[in-house]
């Protein structure tokens, strides 16, 4: 049954990857990649059970962490054009494609 779940996860990841490739805006791509990251976390957990080695769950947690921080960083870069700022004026009309 874990194999079925893993197969469904892979199908869903392919669909999300279509959206990441199609775009059309940068936000679509970020959204699709964040979603693929979430599915990767679940896939790591399922694969751990499939192989009978649930130790991989630490990796899933670490991956979820990096996925979250990466998404926030990309969005901050798109929105402000600067990773180090603490706020202030936003860059209007950031690149959309």
């Amino acid at each position, binding site marked *: *049954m*874990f194999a*079925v*779940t893993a197969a*469904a*996860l892979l*199908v*869903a*990841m392919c*669909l*999300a990857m*279509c*959206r990441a490739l199609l775009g059309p*805006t*940068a*936000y*679509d791509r*970020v*959204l*699709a990649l*964040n*979603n693929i990251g*979430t*599915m990767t*976390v*679940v896939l790591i*957990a*399922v694969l751990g*059970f499939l192989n009978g080695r*649930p130790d991989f*769950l*630490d990796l*899933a*947690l670490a991956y*979820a*962490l990096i996925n*979250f921080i990466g*998404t*926030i960083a990309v*969005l*901050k870069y*798109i*929105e402000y054009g600067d990773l180090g700022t603490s706020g202030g004026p*936003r860059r*209007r*009309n*950031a690149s*959309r494609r």
Partner: protein
Amino acid sequence: MMAQVLSVLVWALLLSGAFFLVTGALGMVRLPDVFTRMHAAGMADTMGAGLILVGLCVHSGVNLVTLRLLLVLAFLWFTSPIATHALAKAALSGGAEPYTLAGGDEGERGTEAEGGGMS
């Protein structure tokens, strides 16, 4: 007897989680703009991941693996809305136009939305 009930429960949880994941991914492809796609992505993040991880919890019983699974689940459910909110805010301030129904008759609605999603 008990083992069979548990096995059926695990099957049901994993399959329904996979159903929500695939539906969410399908919505990512079909829906017309980035804001509506966020709802589909939120579906995969909440129920899709949640049901699968809870299914794995039921399968493993009560031990340290369950604790780690619950940590992963708590982390996903805590961070997914934050990331979605940051994305929505960035998209609005970056000038993405929210899709709205172009004022027209009922018949046009469905095909128009679908066409927008597939392009």
